[in-house]
């Protein structure tokens, strides 16, 4: 009889990378459905192309490099889906595919695959498009089902327009009803407009404990607080752009945020502050993408500096 001998533990949790990614996909489902509903079939195409491009990029790259295929962990699908939801519905499909390939190959695989990337791949893919084709990335289709007062605000004939943040930056106050902000009756990226759907996803992820509340709360909270201090409407600040989507689905990316609770808090506040700084003093009306990428780069530093007291020790070494 041959017996295995190993150091404990001899049992492991059933929760693996794949199940965590599946939970993220489930949390993204309401946002995806809402995005397709609001922006129509065109949005579905953008999402499909970015997801499939992400999967193919990862598979082909790992085949070429003779690495173990990790397609089953679902992380490429998550990256592709988040990227797709971050694009305007009118973006050319080849741009979606290109951004996906760059996200997976340049940001994720070249740094060692899942867990080793230092920037959020989807975020970088979007930033790449934003820097390369700024006009195409900032002209948003109005939701096909745009109803009510917003129509008057944006003009009935418009087929594309800027997010509500643009007028705000120009000092124009738009009178958009709160219900439109929450339901997504405003121009924007496919996934960022419907805040209700994002909040459902957030609640799901908190309930199944995929993420903790610290980053979303401190991110959104600091945006609201700082916007208010700068004289802007805090509700518009958090509900009109990509803050909520970024805080819930992108700043919470495990690989690119700090490990400790105190690090999560610093990271959330840092993201929120950067968003407000870029919106107020930068050239862009929106700053979520660059804010998160900036804080991604600070994550190793935050990890290095954050420590906690070890049981039985008076003071912990950094």
């Amino acid at each position, binding site marked *: *009889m041959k017996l295995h001998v190993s150091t404990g533990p*001899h049992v492991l949790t059933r929760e693996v990378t794949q199940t965590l990614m599946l939970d993220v996909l489930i949390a993204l489902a309401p946002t995806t459905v809402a995005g397709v509903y609001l922006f129509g079939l065109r949005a579905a195409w953008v999402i499909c192309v970015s997801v499939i491009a992400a999967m193919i990029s990862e598979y082909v790259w790992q085949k070429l490099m003779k690495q173990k295929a990790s397609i089953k962990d679902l992380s490429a699908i998550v990256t592709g889906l988040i990227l797709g939801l971050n694009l305007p519905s009118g973006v050319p499909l080849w741009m979606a595919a290109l951004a996906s390939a760059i996200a997976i190959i340049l940001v994720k695989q070249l740094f060692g695959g899942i867990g080793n990337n230092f920037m959020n791949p989807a975020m970088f893919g979007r930033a790449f498009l934003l820097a390369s084709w700024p006009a195409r990335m900032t002209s948003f289709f109005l939701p096909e089902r745009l109803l009510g007062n917003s129509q008057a605000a944006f003009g009935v004939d418009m087929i594309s327009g800027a997010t509500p943040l643009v007028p705000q930056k120009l000092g124009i106050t738009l009178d958009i009803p709160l219900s439109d902000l929450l339901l997504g009756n405003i121009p924007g990226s496919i996934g960022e407009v419907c805040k209700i759907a994002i909040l459902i996803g957030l609640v799901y992820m908190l309930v199944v404990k995929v993420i903790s509340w610290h980053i979303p709360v401190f991110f959104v909270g600091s945006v609201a607080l700082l916007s208010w201090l700068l004289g802007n409407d805090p509700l518009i600040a958090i509900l009109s752009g990509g803050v909520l989507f970024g805080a819930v689905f992108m700043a919470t990316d495990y690989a690119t945020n700090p490990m400790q609770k105190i690090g999560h808090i610093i990271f959330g506040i840092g993201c929120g502050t950067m968003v407000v700084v870029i919106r107020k003093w930068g050239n862009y009306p929106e700053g979520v993408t660059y804010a998160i990428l900036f804080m991604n780069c600070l994550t190793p530093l935050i990890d290095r500096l954050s420590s906690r007291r070890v*049981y039985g020790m008076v003071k912990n070494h950094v």
Partner: protein
Amino acid sequence: MSKFSFRGGIHPLHDTHEGKDLTRNKPVRAYASKIVTIPMDMHIGAPSNPIVKKGEQVLLGQVIAEAVGGIGIPVHASVSGTVTDVSAKIMMRKVPSMCITIENNGLDEWIPLNPLGSVESADSTKIIQAIKAAGICGMGGACFPTHIKMSPPPDKQVDIIILNGAECETYLTADFRLMLEQPQKVVDGLRIAMRAMNVKRGLIGIEDNKPEAIDAIKKAAAGRDDIEVCTLKTKYPQGGEKQLIKALINKEVPAGGLPADAGAVVLNVATAAAIRDAVVEGMPLINRITTVTGKVKEPDNLLLPIGTLVNEAVEACGGYSQEPGKIFFGGSMTGICAPNEEASVTKANNGLVVFNEKEAIIPPEDNCIRCSRCIYACPVYLNPYAMKKAFDMDKMDVLENKLNVKECILCGACSYICPSHQYLTPAFKDAKDIIAARRVSK
């Protein structure tokens, strides 16, 4: 009612009630082993010195090996019969252990016993000596000689004795059955220990997944103002000495210190029962309750003579129900693997678990996804993520001086919770061994 708990920790096998359902309702059954192989190095401290020879007849409870050194304890015959072998064998350690093998003649002939007296009347100055003479060591798994634990350095003021009835480890129900069936023994053991150490306060901590045991112990301790029964939250490792102290009296054992530095001594409930038997009956520690479970036909709680072989313990439970792939002593979080079926039950073995081949295989490591679960789970607030990175890069100095790996209690919580199956606890065990070996060689 508020429940006592600590920060961190996990809920292993939560959906199957920690695997305890298999044996929860099985009353303790005494089993007479045909043959026992008793290692001399069961306890922490110098191995005992055999004083019997091959062919000699021994009686139940007879001293067969003397204590060596200050920390050592004697070993007693756990069956009556003939000594058939005194030799070094590979048991649970990497190096061979000196073992005494006795064949049971089935007569159960005892040596004359010399009890110290009843719970109230026993001479309190002689109790600790009686505990040493009975060969008692920590029966929760660590096997640290109890008489040493109960003799803290004179500058440390111990004002509380905590009985550990948490039994947070998966699969095990040995302590549960003991508390349920013999609660008076446990409470009496605590009272004797309190008298011996002149301590006026005793706590008994039991996890809330054992309400019947809580009731039984409460009944047994009824009317005693100096003993309090505390309900603990079911969470692993609630029964870790440091976690239990934190949970019950909200104090921390200083790094590198003893529980006595926090004013407490922690004893397992089985150890308390053994103390009672040693003092009131004069009985040495020759058997213990062991949960034999997993892939055996009739999982059971057995009262086994110390030294019972794995194959005989399994046989007592109807044999294997599936081809075994792994057999370990203890629960599935910290259990120590038996290299073969000839390993034997020691004073520390509260469980013997059989896994089939499928359960035995630990999946390979995937990439760490930095999910922070290990950090949240660590009950001593370490950073397992950073520790594993340092270990993989062979940075032992960083592990020792900056990441405090020596404070790791090897509970396995981080490894259990890791979604990418990183070998965290094994790495930290290796690191601790390497650092300890370096210190010795310096």
